[in-house]
């Protein structure tokens, strides 16, 4: 049996969903659209009852994508999500507002359970609802009360689902039985007024209110011009700081574990192609996916709290006017800020943005924010070409350049947003009616469920793309055309340098020769004419290509190419070899001009396959990640070229 779970936003619908299905949940999308579809099930004896959690809407008039999905599924009996029964969740403390959607659903003639949730809250607020009067008005459905927040009422819902009452053909507002999209705005309005009037009459007889004074002091603080922004800044700081620092421990653990696993299995299996594939391709690939999990989990833990408490809508309220001229939304702030740690959870968190265009722009610009994977690249290059010292005696020059790179990314992101706003067609009207739900303590269960859900989506939907690309990159870096690679390795062993070198040095000379002659090495040489105007040679070209796996790989690749020995103080010797590196004409490869150009390149370039994979997942097409790859690539090329020209 299929059951559709429907209701307004902020009615505790997700609490009810979690209550009914527990961990037996799945996340997907409704066919053809980017609207999230959560489904789950529970067993009633031998029968499996599937629950589909539809997006929260205020009505069935199809205006937003969310509303269109709900109304099209309910109107299309052939749809694979067409339900056998409906559970309509309403907030008992705000019955009048919630009845609009409910009465529309009622008119569909499907067996139905009306769930009056937040029953305790209604009582506490002095609202009493006459259930008899509701049953009189809606005699052919089941009506139950719940307080899902504390887990009350699950049995009442499942009992009602087991014994569906047959519908009698009764409707709430008869003239609206056949609603369709072609109706004029005027007639939509007329029927909405009629429905609303009937609801008001019903409420007058079924509900008595003895309301107490309001409690808006906290809200005044949250939206205050000074304290509002300061508090939000504080929240961001805490979030950002935690993602940045706490995530490193589990990340190092994952890195270490997979490094160990790769080494262990390479020793315990017979050598050969299969061994290489598993130990150098697949295991590091899976490790490269898992490494993101701590950051994703932490970010969604915080976002879950912000959403659950209702604070997030206050953020939208104070940020909306500021972000709007850029084609963004008040809700874009959180994804963009978290992209400073990592764009992957940032892109995933853009889901909270309702408007498709604003969400898309947020996703497209998020990777321009400098993420933590750029830090190793920045610090290496800064140490290489920026002199130590102070401006005005107190501003550290190297620190100032680092700050400038971050700023460049942020400015680039905001300006790009502005351009995209003009370029991308808008499907929806630019209005925003946003509910500010009551502030309340978070329900930790819901927070944990949302963390698990995001991690699961990332591992299953995004992970496979990342593993596939990393295997491809491994192949390109480990194999070369014909026998060139082997020949080069053998040749390198004939050189005087090799014969004089220690064992460790021998290995690194060999692998440098190997990488140079691999497919990716050839590719790096092939693109040299293209990147020459930026001040790069083919060795940098190879590192640019390999760091598509993840930006920090740039450092590792350079170490391999310059045959830096794996032992000892790695970064220092890498720095030394880079300083000594000369062009064919004898001038140093890394000058202020080429170094700055390279840094600017990393600010803008989409050097991250994992982000592309997650953008594909979130936009449901390859079109947008490819567009992103191209426009960021063009930006990177143009700006690093200009930088090089200006400094050379």
């Amino acid at each position, binding site marked *: 049996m299929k059951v559709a779970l429907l209701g307004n936003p902020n009615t505790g619908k997700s609490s009810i969903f979690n209550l009914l299905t527990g961990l037996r949940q799945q996340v997907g999308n409704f066919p053809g659209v980017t609207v999230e579809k959560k489904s789950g099930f529970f067993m009633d004896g031998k029968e499996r009852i599937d629950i589909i959690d539809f997006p929260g809407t*205020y*009505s069935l*008039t199809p*205006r937003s994508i969310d509303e269109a999905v709900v109304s099209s599924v309910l109107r299309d009996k052939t749809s694979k999500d067409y339900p056998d029964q409906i559970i309509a969740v309403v907030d008992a*403390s*705000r019955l*009048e*507002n919630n009845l*609009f*959607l409910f009465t529309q659903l009622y008119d569909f003639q499907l067996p139905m359970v009306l769930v009056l949730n937040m029953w305790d809250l209604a009582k506490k*607020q002095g609202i009493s609802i006459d259930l008899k009067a509701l049953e009189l008005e809606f005699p052919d459905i089941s009506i139950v009360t719940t307080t899902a927040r504390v887990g009350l009422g699950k049995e009442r819902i499942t009992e009602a689902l087991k014994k569906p009452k047959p519908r009698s053909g009764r409707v709430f507002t008869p003239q609206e039985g056949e609603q369709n999209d072609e109706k*004029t*705005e*005027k007639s*939509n*309005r007329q029927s*909405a*007024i009629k429905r*609303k009037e009937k609801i008001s009459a019903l409420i007058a007889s079924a509900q008595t*209110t003895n*309301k107490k004074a*309001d409690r*808006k002091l906290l*809200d*005044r603080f949250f*939206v*205050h*011009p000074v304290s*509002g*922004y300061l508090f939000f800044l504080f929240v961001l700081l805490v979030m950002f700081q935690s993602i940045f620092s706490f995530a490193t421990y589990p990340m190092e653990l994952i890195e270490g574990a997979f490094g160990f696993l790769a080494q262990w299995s390479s020793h315990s299996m017979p050598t050969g192609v299969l061994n290489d594939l598993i130990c150098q391709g697949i295991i590091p690939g899976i490790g490269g996916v898992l490494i993101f999990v701590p950051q994703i989990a932490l970010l969604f833990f915080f976002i879950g709290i912000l959403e659950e408490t209702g604070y997030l*809508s206050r953020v*939208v*309220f*104070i940020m*909306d*006017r*500021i972000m709007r001229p850029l084609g963004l939304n008040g809700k874009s702030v959180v994804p963009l800020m978290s992209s400073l740690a990592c764009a992957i959870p940032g892109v995933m968190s853009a889901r909270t943005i309702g408007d498709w265009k604003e969400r898309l722009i947020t996703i497209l610009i998020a990777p321009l924010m400098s993420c933590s994977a750029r830090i190793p690249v920045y610090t290496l290059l800064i140490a290489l070409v920026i002199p130590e010292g102070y401006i005005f005696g107190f501003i550290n020059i190297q620190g100032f350049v680092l700050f400038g790179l971050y700023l460049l990314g942020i400015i680039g992101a905001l300006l790009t947003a502005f351009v995209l706003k003009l370029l991308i067609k808008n499907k929806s*009207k630019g*209005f*925003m*009616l*946003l*509910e*500010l*739900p*009551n502030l309340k303590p978070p329900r930790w269960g819901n927070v944990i469920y949302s963390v698990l859900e995001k991690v699961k989506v990332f591992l299953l939907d995004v992970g496979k793309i990342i593993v596939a690309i990393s295997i491809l990159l491994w192949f390109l870096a480990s194999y070369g055309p014909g026998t060139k690679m082997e020949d080069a390795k053998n040749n390198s062993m004939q050189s005087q340098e090799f014969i004089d070198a220690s064992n460790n040095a021998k290995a690194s000379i060999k692998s440098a020769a190997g990488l140079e002659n691999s497919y990716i090495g050839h590719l790096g040489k092939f693109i040299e004419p293209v990147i020459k105007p930026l001040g790069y040679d083919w060795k940098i070209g190879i590192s640019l290509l390999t760091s598509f796996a993840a930006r920090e790989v740039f450092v590792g690749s350079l170490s391999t190419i310059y045959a830096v020995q794996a032992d000892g103080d790695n970064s220092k010797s890498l720095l030394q070899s880079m300083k000594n590196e000369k062009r064919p004409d004898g001038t140093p490869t890394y000058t202020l001009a080429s170094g700055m150009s390279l840094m600017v390149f990393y600010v803008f370039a989409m050097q991250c396959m994992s982000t592309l994979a997650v953008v594909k997942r979130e936009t449901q097409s390859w079109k947008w990640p490819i567009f992103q790859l191209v426009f960021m690539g063009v930006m990177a090329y143009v700006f690093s070229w200009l930088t090089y020209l200006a400094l050379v």
Partner: protein
Amino acid sequence: MQTNLSHCAVGEKIEIISIEDDFIATKLIEMGVTEKLQTKVVLIAPLGDPIAIDINGFILSIRKAEARKILVKKLAKSQNSNIT
């Protein structure tokens, strides 16, 4: 006094007279904002936009552009008694 919602201050009690745009009006009715509704402005964002009104305990934020389309009557203090 008749004006539109974008010209109201925090705490001012108002009654909604009419809504200009059919599209916005339908959307607002669905969320509980009807003509003749007595309400008050509870919050205004720092840059004067958006504006939030209280509909029987349900706080709704409306952008200024839409607020301009909502004609309201400011209620004198003596008429406050029937507002929750």
